[in-house]
């Protein structure tokens, strides 16, 4: 496959970036998207040019580092995948592919295609945890009865890898699917009930302070989420928040 790549190049967080065109030939349709970028970078290095900076770690769809907006969609045109799981067979010979970083005020670009998603970490620090006694009196989680449906929903919410595709896809750059998943995974379980009120209030407060937009329920986040996190988690968070706010 021969491709034209339009890649966002930005030296650092303080400089302005722009799209730069690259031609890449003999791309195998069996390559992953990141492997295709590896090939490009190898060619750039051989020519003495600066390689394209992009995030990656596990390359098996777990880490959520590969934050690329490809041809107008987070993680590209495939569904339920991260960028490392996207294969070049999803494109056609002669295609022009736009590759941009995830865009949001709360995700500033560090360099080229790498964005700073530490705003997600700060939201997690604000309440995405439970307090467990680990001084020898820890209760075995298996000893606490949990309704099967709640356990399934909590597990489904906990599969969120915090990649930020929800924010990138949302026309408002809202982080509510991420925060909804993190609130839900605890709110559904007995272990999470103790801190439920503070958790949702603090996480939503932090989310707002980070500069994410308001959710208008377009559902783009759910469609683009590589882990299929459901919009029901946002509804659950809304309920949890309203209950907590009314409580005090």
């Amino acid at each position, binding site marked *: 496959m021969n491709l034209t790549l339009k890649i966002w190049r930005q030296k650092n967080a303080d400089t302005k970036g722009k799209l730069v065109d690259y031609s890449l030939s003999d791309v195998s349709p069996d390559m992953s998207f990141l492997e295709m970028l590896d090939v490009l970078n190898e060619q750039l290095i051989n020519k003495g040019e600066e390689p394209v900076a992009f995030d990656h770690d596990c390359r098996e769809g777990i880490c959520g580092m590969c934050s690329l*907006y490809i041809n107008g969609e987070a993680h590209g045109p495939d569904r339920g995948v991260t960028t490392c799981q996207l294969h070049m067979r999803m494109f056609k010979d002669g295609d022009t592919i736009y590759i941009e970083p995830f865009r949001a005020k709360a995700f500033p670009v560090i360099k080229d295609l790498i964005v700073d998603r530490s705003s997600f970490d700060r939201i997690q620090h604000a309440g995405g945890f439970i307090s467990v006694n680990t001084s020898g009196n820890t209760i075995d989680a298996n000893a606490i009865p949990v309704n099967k449906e709640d356990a399934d929903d909590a597990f489904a919410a906990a599969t969120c890898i915090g990649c930020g595709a929800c924010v990138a896809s949302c026309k408002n750059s809202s982080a509510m699917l991420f925060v909804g998943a993190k609130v839900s995974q605890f709110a559904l379980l007995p272990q999470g009930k103790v801190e439920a009120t503070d958790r949702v209030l603090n996480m939503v407060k932090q989310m707002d302070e980070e500069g994410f937009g308001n959710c*208008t329920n377009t559902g783009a986040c759910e469609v683009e989420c590589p882990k299929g996190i459901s919009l029901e988690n946002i509804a659950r968070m809304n*309920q949890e928040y309203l209950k907590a706010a009314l409580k005090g």
Partner: protein
Amino acid sequence: MSGILNSSIGRKFAMALSAFFLMIFILQHFAINSLSVINPDTFNEVSHFMGTFWVIQYLLQPVLILGVIFHFVMGFVLEIKNNKARQISYAKNNGAANSTWMSRNMIWSGGFILVFLVIHFIDFWIPEINTKYIAGDMSGLIDPNVADSGYRYYEELVHKFEPIWRVALYCLGFIFLALHLLHGFNSAFQSVGANNKYTKGLKGFGKFYAIVIPVGFIFIALFHHFSH
């Protein structure tokens, strides 16, 4: 409780509550307008009741106006805030791949509805207020000096729908209302946290409401234009 309206979820909740109120209002407005097709005399009676009963005039009418203003102002405020959350736009964005046109363009459908509402107020509400509270005629009669001249409401409605341009404008306004409701109905329920296995039926009902009510309003306008 303090600061709830300053939070993103609080604002969503407030938008949803005003939307519920407006959707109930539209339903009763449609029900009354339908009477003009079914039975003009009953339409006149109900219109006179709605136009003169103090609870509706002095309590519900101001609440409705405030609800409309709140919904529009909050909608525009949220749009401005949301635009600020992404300072650099994507060079290529394929919004159609993951969301409906209606959900991405609520500000535009809402804006057209606002234009329609201004025209609707000029057409019906301002003359009504002028007759009742400026001229002081609370009789509701075609000729206030002739007791058996009959109520004026049906006559006025028919007269308003004589020019085709106004009928076309109303049809356009209700098409935008349908587009707005196709996303807005279920979005309001999602905002108040009603999206789970027990609320699946709401999605279908939302689409039904969003299509049947505006189409009904369009039918009423066309009916009066072509039958008189």
